[in-house]
């Protein structure tokens, strides 16, 4: 899950990483009080988890606290829309932070290197621009330091990397400290991505994390109840947020053929088949291993929350999941929900014969293979 900028900065500060002064505000008077603390010269940033929030008008600099308060007033409750996020997100808080004088901008991130199965710290003297651009144009300007979490990282390795990244000598000591802080955050707070862009070097010789993006490993959220409240703030679609509350693996894909199945691989493959058959998948939904009738019903409800859905494909290969349980769940869902769109089910594996017998005579069209099911649902939905 992505953290808001204010959460990221609070977290970094806890580990001794220097960040600019600032606090979160939910209304104009709070914003004014915070801005006054910094003599009125502040930046106000909408706390929404979407790309392009600056271009969407969510970030502005101010010389006095009254203007900062007025802007905050305008922002709260407003829906910001960007190219990256056309549906937009509603602002419910802003970060009011002190303005930082910047002499130079550097770049730092800590990521998971899947190939090496280690953390990788990426260090660059070229900050303030997209790191992808740096990687393409001047790959030698990025220095990578791998960290084995079973061993941790030693000072000399970090010093050496900072030196190789050609960070100017006066900033090196603070840079080493910042990197060690970030690695601690990654390992102790279950981050799965930390990016500081830019790392600001001020004219008076301070190194600050001027912006901060931190994301936390969702598998480790049970160790971090402090994020329960903002867990779904990054959801791009309201059904995504609802699914996350229900603990169901659902991703809205914007098409019109609803898809549910058991096992991520099989569902992924089902959406490939729908595409091959000329359909547009509305979603990814994995009912999970060993789903009972109740859960199947909940999943059907979730897929049908999307009003664009014109047809529903169900693909079950029963292993731990029993096909008769699935069939019962489907029937009870359809009995309650008055489903009028075509539904095609492919049911195979454990208790498949019993499952098919239960569905006999219902509105559900059977199919013998995943390929046949995809073709049928597309044909019926677009008829």
């Amino acid at each position, binding site marked *: 899950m992505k953290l808001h900028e204010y959460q990221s900065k609070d977290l970094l500060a806890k580990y001794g990483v220097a960040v600019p002064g600032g606090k979160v505000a939910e209304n104009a008077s709070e914003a004014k009080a915070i801005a006054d603390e910094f003599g009125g010269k502040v930046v106000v940033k909408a706390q929404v988890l979407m790309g392009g929030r600056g271009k969407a008008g969510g970030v502005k600099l101010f010389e006095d606290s009254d203007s900062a308060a007025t802007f905050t007033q305008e922002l709260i409750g407003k829906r910001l829309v960007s190219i990256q996020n056309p549906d937009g997100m509603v602002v419910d808080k802003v970060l009011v932070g002190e303005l930082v004088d910047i002499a130079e901008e550097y770049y730092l991130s800590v990521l*998971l290197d899947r190939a090496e199965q280690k953390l990788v710290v990426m260090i660059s003297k070229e900050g303030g621009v997209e790191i992808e651009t740096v990687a393409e144009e001047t790959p030698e300007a990025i220095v990578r330091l791998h960290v084995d979490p079973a061993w941790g990282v030693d000072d000399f390795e970090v010093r050496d990397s900072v030196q190789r990244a050609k960070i100017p000598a006066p900033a090196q000591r603070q840079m080493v400290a910042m990197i060690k802080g970030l690695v601690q955050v990654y390992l102790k707070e279950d981050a799965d991505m930390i990016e500081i862009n830019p790392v600001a070097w001020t004219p008076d010789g301070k190194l600050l994390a001027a912006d901060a993006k931190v994301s936390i*490993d969702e598998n480790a959220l049970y*160790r971090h109840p402090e994020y329960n409240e903002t867990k779904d703030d990054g959801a791009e679609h309201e059904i995504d947020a609802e699914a996350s509350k229900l603990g169901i693996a659902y991703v809205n894909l914007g098409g019109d053929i609803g898809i549910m199945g058991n096992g*991520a691989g099989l569902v992924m493959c089902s959406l490939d088949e729908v595409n*091959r058959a000329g359909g547009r998948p509305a979603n990814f939904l994995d009912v999970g291993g060993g789903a009972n009738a109740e859960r199947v019903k909940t999943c059907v409800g979730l897929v049908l929350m999307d009003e664009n859905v014109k047809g529903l494909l169900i693909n079950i290969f029963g292993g731990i999941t029993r096909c008769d349980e699935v069939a019962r769940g489907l029937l009870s869902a359809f009995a309650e929900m008055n489903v009028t769109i075509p539904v095609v089910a492919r049911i195979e594996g454990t208790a498949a014969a019993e499952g098919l017998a239960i569905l006999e005579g219902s509105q559900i069209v059977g199919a013998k293979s995943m*390929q046949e099911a995809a073709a049928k649902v597309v044909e019926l939905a677009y008829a």
Partner: protein
Amino acid sequence: MSVLVNKNTKVVVAGMTGKEGSFHAGQMIQYGTQVVAGVTPGKGGTTHLDRPIFNTMHEAVAATGADAALIFVPAPFAADSVLEAEDAGIPFITLITEGVPVNDMMRAVNKIKTNGKSILLGGNCAGIITPDECKMGIMPGHIFKKGPIGMVSRSGTLTYEVAWELTQNDLGQTTCVGIGGDPIIGTRFIDALRMFEEDPETKAVVMIGEIGGTDEEVGAAFIKEHMTKPVVSFISGRTAPPGKRMGHAGAIISGKLGTPQSKVDALLDAGAKVADTTSQVAQMVKDSLVAAGV
């Protein structure tokens, strides 16, 4: 022959007294797997499914000579259980549990790699089966059949889909290895491919990958350099949009990494066949066997 497990494999199950562990251990025993013990801290001295339960892995190994561990314990304790099994000297460990924190897995995987004593399979995997000999995992046993095809897959249910198709086409399997859908796993494609290349009974290999990471590409490089046996592959998630995590924590296209095209290209370049849909896999395997003169 087979890889990693066979009829002599003695399995200790961590978390056998739990709901899932109990159900699947029962299924494994029914299949004929030698399940010799269970481990549940605090329940040592009792029996479950007619098998002795121990408080620790060390006790279980000392008493039963178990040489494989299957781990069902809940995610918060799973990595610890893996390391306990390794410390007890168990050479082959399979982790079924889904949702283990990435940092926990990274630590466990690196420790095991550094120590070099054990092989870890998973986590978040369906396990491993050598048909008619040893089922060590959660797959339905009846869809598999003994034969000459080795299979390795990141996805559990896709393994079932393709294995069932192979079985119905009279293409049995030496061993089917589920490596799991997480970003950090123990055994990877390259490891399984190497084992199948060395196994004399395996005549062809089916490899089922998906979007995310670069393990398929690394596997393809191994196929190109070292494999003499035909490989038929399938990549799922070929139409998944970038940046969206498709259920498996590891199935995500991030930037230029993990795209299906890169995987398909690497596999084709390595001389592997790539099926566009699962229903083509069996025929491609048949053709490959004929072409290889098997």
